[in-house]
């Protein structure tokens, strides 16, 4: 399964987190993991609206014999994050928010990668669980 959601307005945040949650539920992730994933997607897609105005959220799954995972790529073509190290510090914000979005999302996920330059900011997150 692979789905791309355009993030243009606040309702798209609701849609993206709901698609992520439904996929996680379908793949058998626990309700705790469903919530972690939906929350991280919510934080990252809101960042797009606040900093770049629009962008995309790609949601896909990957399954093999002993594990199942969800990968999510959230990207925009905005001006980029000037200082990623600072952006990952709790409480650091340039938007008047809480500064909890990026560092919080990293703590919720198994995988977290961020790259940013002017014209492309890409955050990749993932959860992987063993199949019992």
């Amino acid at each position: 399964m692979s789905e791309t959601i355009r993030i243009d307005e606040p309702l798209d945040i609701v849609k993206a987190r709901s698609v992520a949650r439904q996929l996680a539920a379908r793949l058998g992730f626990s309700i705790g993991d469903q919530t972690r994933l939906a929350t991280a997607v919510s934080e990252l897609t809101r960042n797009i609206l606040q900093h770049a105005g629009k962008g995309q959220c790609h949601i896909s799954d990957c399954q093999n014999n002993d594990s199942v995972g969800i990968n999510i790529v959230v990207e925009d073509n905005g001006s980029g994050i000037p200082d990623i190290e600072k952006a990952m510090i709790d409480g650091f914000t340039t938007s008047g928010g809480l500064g909890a979005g990026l560092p919080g999302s990293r703590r919720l996920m198994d995988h977290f990668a961020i790259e940013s330059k002017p014209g492309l900011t890409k955050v990749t997150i993932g959860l992987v669980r063993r199949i019992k």
Partner: protein
Amino acid sequence: MKIPILKLGRILLASIQVDLSDEDALQFQGELLQEIAKIEALGVAIDITSMDVVDSFMARVINDTASMARLLGAEVIVSGVQPYVAMTLVEMGRELIGADCAFNLEQALNMLKSRIASRGDMQLEQDNTHE
């Protein structure tokens, strides 16, 4: 998306039942404060039993709403935080929910009543006798 705000004497009850957009959340904040000021509510219970995602933005709206309501003079209790929502909020770090919490609406109401009584506002029913 309008969140119903119910009046029980001078206590207001709001139960958030849907997945709110950011705009809906801010609209709810404004409407709740208006209603608190209008009836001079002594207590407010915000029930979030049905909310399965509370991210940092929503947590801030809830906290801010509670602080604003307190500035007006109302006691505020948030009820029904789901276990997995609590886990996620704490894992995200920082104290994202600082409002006083209760397991459910019934406990929230009891807490409100006892706080209202202890601060000397015994009369919970709205006094309309001079109107």
